[in-house]
């Protein structure tokens, strides 16, 4: 599956796009990401699975694209 990172999250992950093995749902994905990138533990962001924003634990279809979308405040 493909993970896309935006804003500060892309800085933490070090890339705008990473490929990882398929994970079953967003909770498992978040657990994996927070372990790999401890700085993400304190970050607040939302997720989109195949370009649909989700809240709560959500199933990730095989080969899906998941975007990590932090809020921006600048103006």
């Amino acid at each position: 599956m493909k993970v896309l990172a935006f804003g500060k999250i892309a800085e933490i992950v070090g890339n705008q796009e990473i490929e990882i093995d398929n994970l079953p749902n967003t909770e498992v994905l978040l657990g994996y990401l927070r372990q790999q990138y401890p700085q993400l533990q304190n970050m607040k962001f939302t997720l989109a699975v195949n370009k649909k924003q989700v809240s709560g634990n959500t199933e990730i279809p095989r080969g899906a694209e998941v975007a990590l979308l932090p809020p921006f405040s600048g103006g």
Partner: protein
Amino acid sequence: MDRFERQYILPGFGHAAQKKLCEAKVLVVGAGGLGCPSLLYLAAAGIGTIGIVDGDKVSLSNLNRQVLFGQRDIGKNKAETASKIILQKYDDIKVIPFPIFLRTDNIIDIIKDYDLVLDGSDNFPTRYLINDACLILGKPLIFGAIYQTEGQVAIFNKEGQKSVNYRDIYPTPPTAQEVPNCNETGVLGVLPGLIGTLMATETIKLISGYGETLSGKMLFYNLIDHSTYKIELSKNPESDLQRPQSVADLHKMDYHDFCGISAQLDWDTIPELLEQNLETVLIDVREEYEEPKLEEYPYTRIELSQLDNAHESLYKFTNILIFCQSGIRSQQAAKALQEKFPDKNIKSIAGGILSLTIRN
């Protein structure tokens, strides 16, 4: 022919759409990086009434992106200056400046007279405040925000509470430390130019019914490679319970507190904050002759009366800790600075230097 001819001859737009623009009332919050380009295009498009809210003054470092203003405007209020500039260009629209910052006790009275709100503010407390007020009053909200080379744009609340709003996506605000704004991280002036222009585009489309708007969607843009990413937003039933439900509820909210920014702390926490990083500054706002002097920690002295002139030197700090003799003037200073820097962690030290000397 009038100044809108090129607009109404556009196939599918026409006189009916132009009439809607001329009758519309739009409130633009923040005449900054996003607000300036939005205002230029909304006024040019013929939005009949434009309100501009901004309590801030133009400063030198604004000029790379706040394109309504020039060097001669430094020190002037942004809302009043923007309003004058637009009215010099066009005499067929109304422009109303509000040279103030939005707060829980003034936002409802200002927003209620407008059809929709464009949020060009630059901090989370104001963004949540605007979102919540628009929800209570049922006003559509054109949202736009930037971070370094990226921007996000959306329309919230198009059909009242049925529509998605900011809290559906981000129910919990990030802390001041989590997301620095462009005063701290730098930005190319063209980025808010692009995002502000997208916001004006969405405003014009929403009012006129032309094209397909970003209602219920969020568009991400990155200047580095012009990549865009458009997602479909969804309602989050839990977030709806957490927001203020009425004007009375809104009045009770403390948006700084909600965003993890509270007003006071004790000397005990100072060493930890000072050690943590270089982003912390400790300020003595007393007059030069006042005793005792602080000996325990490094500090900067800015007299209360000089605070307004010291803003530029404070941009780079995330935590601003203020003390005085007994904790009264530092509270005034913290309040004034918090209005200027709503998403910084600004604290007054309770009891002032006297509470430290008593303990020693």
